[in-house]
């Protein structure tokens, strides 16, 4: 059975759901960031699959932008993690409620 775009989209949605599940259930701030990366990666896979199916490379340009943005996001997020940990000595997002979120 030949691999079609639907296979890639199903894999992408499975990875996205797993990442969303991690964001919802995990309490460790670093693991939440990792799950966020998982979701971004799933979206990138969908972009590349559509780019291949449509024969249009614009989707790959979008993925380059998304990778750049996620790299900047991870740098800022981990700097915040280090700052929060030195301040509060925990990474439990149930305890970190300074913003009353």
């Amino acid at each position: 059975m030949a691999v079609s775009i639907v296979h890639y989209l199903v894999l992408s949605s499975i990875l996205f759901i797993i990442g969303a599940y991690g964001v919802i259930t995990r309490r460790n701030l670093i693991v939440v960031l990792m799950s966020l990366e998982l979701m971004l990666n799933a979206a990138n896979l969908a972009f590349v699959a559509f780019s291949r199916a449509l024969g249009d490379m614009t989707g790959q340009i979008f993925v380059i932008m998304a990778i750049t943005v996620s790299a900047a996001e991870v740098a800022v997020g981990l700097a915040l993690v280090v700052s929060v940990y030195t301040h509060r000595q925990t990474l439990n997002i149930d305890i970190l409620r300074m913003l009353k979120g």
Partner: protein
Amino acid sequence: MHHALLRFGSKSGLESILFYIFAALAVVGAILVISHDNPVINALSLVLTLFSTAVLFIFLLAHFLAAIQVLVYAGAIMVLFIFTVMYLNLREESLSFDSFNKPMRLSILFVLLIVSGFIAGLGFKKGLMLNGAGVSLDDFGTVRGVGDLLFRTYLLPFELTSVLIVVAIIGVVVIAKRRLD
């Protein structure tokens, strides 16, 4: 112009076998990311998932993106994650707070809703199966093709990305250097 038109689902069985292998590796890595208690193992599982995705990018004729994925994601971002985990030196008792108790049922319901939504969406979008779209193999996904598009059509967004990175660098330095009272 059209030298070798490659159909989407090539008939060779090897590609589909490799697709299933690396898709399974990606899913296993993703599940390990959200299920294991040790953050180092979480980070290494994320490397597994990102690397498998890079292999899938090669099947999708995005060779340059596969290289970028390995270099930036599996290289730089993972080093940042592992460096942070090691730097903070998270103790065992601070790691054990991660339990699946309270939001369990609600989140399972949420996930099932998303899954059913996606499956229904894929069922409805049968018209999206563009398997017949052949792609000219000349420049598709190579450094030349992507670079041509990036530096001609999308030059302004590309340059704006550098502004974003400068902002991120300044932000990180400000956050990291801030006196804690």
